[in-house]
């Protein structure tokens, strides 16, 4: 009897890329729902625009590159990039911001480098940085979070206001951009510090105190807690690496704690840094993107710690409201070098 031949091993674990990507997507759900609860319809619009643009662009690029479209789309990577980007963008970003960021992420950051597995930089973060540098004003348009009242309006704008603003760029007669949006806690503290108002002064200012109903800011704290919960589930499921988030959070907490202990009036606490802005989204979903992160065990510690340090530096002394995207891409650049110098000692290697 004759048989077909195949290479070993002849058995296999049943995990695949599609499942891994979708597990990450599922883990995003709690944090994304919290985001929608606190920042309103804009988050949903961001998601819808980013997902449709990313998937269409991915399909177009695959066609141009002569690759299989349907089966490749199924790997879920473009969908994940879209969701990460949408959750990072401000909730009242005009539609074209999201479109430009999505296009850049998929076309330049992903496919021009060779597609899934070959991109040296995190596509979502590259897209984010492009719009952040080009349109800094629009990138501060976070809606007033649920539970915060400014003047006579409370919380985020309603569906039609948000829709008209995001897609048509028009606002009702009674509203202005300033009246429906609000700076994020990180941004606010930074600008107030620049005007020589220290942190306790900012937090107790009646104009902003509603934004600081909890340590790391109204809404932001819950969003971060839920991204953390999703992240822990991912790590437990062995989908995300545990070293990168651990190193990232330890480094961010240690550094911010050091500075706030030295001068608490001008430096926010470690808890504030850990649960504000994009910290947890970055720790478990962005920094852990395997394609662009380090792959050696020791390298992952260094990579995570490096992002933590850079996030703190950019948040404290940089010119941008949050430092996640820059920190991640800067460490992406360093990843191959770190990998090269952190090769583990092989079995039985007694040198070095």
């Amino acid at each position, binding site marked *: 009897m004759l048989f*077909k031949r195949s290479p*070993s091993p002849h058995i296999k674990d049943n995990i695949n890329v599609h499942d*891994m990507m979708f597990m990450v997507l599922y883990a995003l759900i709690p944090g994304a729902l919290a985001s929608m609860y606190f920042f309103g319809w804009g988050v949903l619009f961001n998601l819808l625009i980013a997902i449709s643009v990313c998937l269409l662009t991915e399909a177009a690029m695959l066609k141009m590159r002569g690759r299989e479209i349907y089966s490749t789309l199924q790997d879920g990577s473009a969908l994940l990039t879209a969701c990460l980007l949408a959750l990072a963008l401000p909730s009242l970003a005009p539609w074209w911001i999201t479109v430009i960021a999505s296009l850049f992420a998929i076309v330049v950051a992903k496919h021009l480098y060779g*597609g899934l597995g070959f991109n040296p930089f995190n596509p979502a973060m590259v897209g984010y940085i492009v719009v952040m540098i080009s349109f800094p004003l629009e990138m501060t348009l976070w809606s007033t979070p649920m539970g915060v009242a400014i003047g006579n309006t409370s919380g985020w704008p309603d569906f039609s206001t948000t829709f008209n603003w995001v897609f048509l760029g028009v606002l009702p007669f009674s509203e202005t951009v300033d009246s429906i949006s609000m700076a994020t806690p990180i941004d606010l503290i930074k600008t107030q510090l620049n005007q020589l108002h220290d942190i306790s002064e900012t937090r107790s200012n009646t104009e902003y105190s509603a934004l600081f109903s909890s340590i790391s800011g109204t809404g932001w704290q819950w969003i971060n807690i839920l991204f953390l919960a999703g992240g822990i589930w991912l790590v437990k499921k062995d989908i995300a690496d545990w070293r990168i988030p651990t190193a990232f959070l330890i480094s961010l907490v240690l550094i911010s704690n050091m500075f706030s202990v030295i001068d608490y009036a001008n430096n926010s606490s470690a808890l504030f840094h850990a649960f504000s802005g994009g910290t947890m989204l970055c720790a478990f979903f962005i920094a852990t993107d395997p394609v662009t992160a380090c792959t050696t065990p020791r390298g992952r510690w260094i990579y995570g710690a490096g992002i933590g340090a850079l996030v703190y530096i950019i948040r404290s002394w940089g010119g941008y409201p949050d430092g996640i995207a820059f920190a991640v891409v800067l460490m992406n650049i360093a990843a191959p070098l770190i990998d090269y110098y952190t090769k583990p000692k092989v079995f039985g290697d007694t040198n070095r």
Partner: protein
Amino acid sequence: MNLTKSQTAEESLAAFDGGLKLVSYKSISTRTTITAIAQSKQYIVPLQQHIGVISQVLVKPGEKVLKGQMLAKPGNLISAAIHSPVSGTITDITQHDVPHISGLADQCVIIENDFNDEWIKRQPLGDDYNQKSSQDLRKIIRDSGIVGLGGATFPSSVKQTEINIKTLILNGAECEPYITCDDALMRERAQEILSGADIIGHIIKARQCIIAIEDNKPEAIKAIQSAIDQDGTGFFQISIIPTIYPSGGEKQLIKIITGKEVPKSRYPAELDVLCHNVATAYAIHRAIYFAEPLISRITTITGHGVSQPQNVEVLIGTSMKHCIEHCGGYTDDSAELIMGGPMMGFSLSSDTLPIVKACNCLLITTKTEDIQKEKHLPCIRCGKCVEVCPVRLLPQQLYWYASSKNIDRLVEHNLFDCIECGCCAYVCPSDIPLVQYYRYAKTTIWQQERERKSSDISRLRYEAHQQRIEKQKREREEKLRKKREMLKIKNADSDKNSEQTAITEALARAQEKKAERLKEKNKETD
């Protein structure tokens, strides 16, 4: 009370990095005891069944051979003898397909069985082996053609060269799924295994013997433990190790038992240990107590593609087809025939191949178990392979460099330390056949190395040749130059009557020669 002994051994166990917990599928082939396969008409005995040099054939076609007669002697130090599994006639010595990963044919002795089962004269040593020197015993083991039966088939006597090794480790881990031949052997022939270990211990002057068994073989553990209790010398100790693939790899097992890693490209003797498979110990017992060379082994015929999976005692050279028929034949949905386990075994193209010394298992899979994908996705560098690699390699980097044929980087990332255990490919979410890439890269590098060596030799030869020609040319020119100079001097000396002088000189020379000849003639006549 005996349990405490094994428990203490277990507590001090180390672990190697990486590894996998696999579904074992072992129970499907251990429902019955070992069965013997009836002799068949024809036996095909390959001359290369071991690591090392091919054996030198001692017989001719047409010759009558007896069971256990040596058909071929070791071709070198690292080689093994081959024996006839039956009595009969050699019909041919020719190229025949053999079970090898390359799928190529090799030189085989083909024997027609006369069914007389007539043995050569045997003089078993028995308990007297105690009086023999290590060297004598090693010679018997060498002449019996015994090789490592765990699958590596390295000549056993060569391993036993170093003496005064403290610890002998018997490998009964059997970590690959499906395979149960060692398990069955330990269950049924524990005392014989211990006897073989005693012999090896005597050869290498070991002070203790640790028998390592994975904790998923309770019956084997029980059998070995009771044999140890009967022995009562305190030489043996059982070590129950956790079931983690590839704990049966020699270096991995030594790490588990001793906590130390065998240094890169060195031997276990460095750590004062020697490792043998339980089946090898059993074969050594047969060689010393029954003067039986290695002409049979226990093989697991298993998988969901065969009707009655079981362990069989089979003569080397039996066709696989015959073995599978013994086990009730194939099921309707059988798909692939694999020699070895599902992790490291290789698939065969036909069942007409003979059973060889390395055949610890024939695994027949079903169509539903087929995991081969037409295409694989790109590597997303998830690092799952890094987590499971027992050698602490970076499989994803190796894959990257193997696909770009970057030899320097491959060597730098220790490609040659890869044991091809398959853990990385097992977990890869992109279904990349990583081991294939590494094998291909290794052979390419070896090939280049060989080509470089041979081109180095021819370059040296060419250079030497060029130098020789150059030298000859120079010498010739020198000669000519001298001649020309002499002529010039002569021409300067002689003037107008040069012609005259030349004639007189020639005459003088002629006369001188004549005189000399005359002298010689006179001498001869005297």
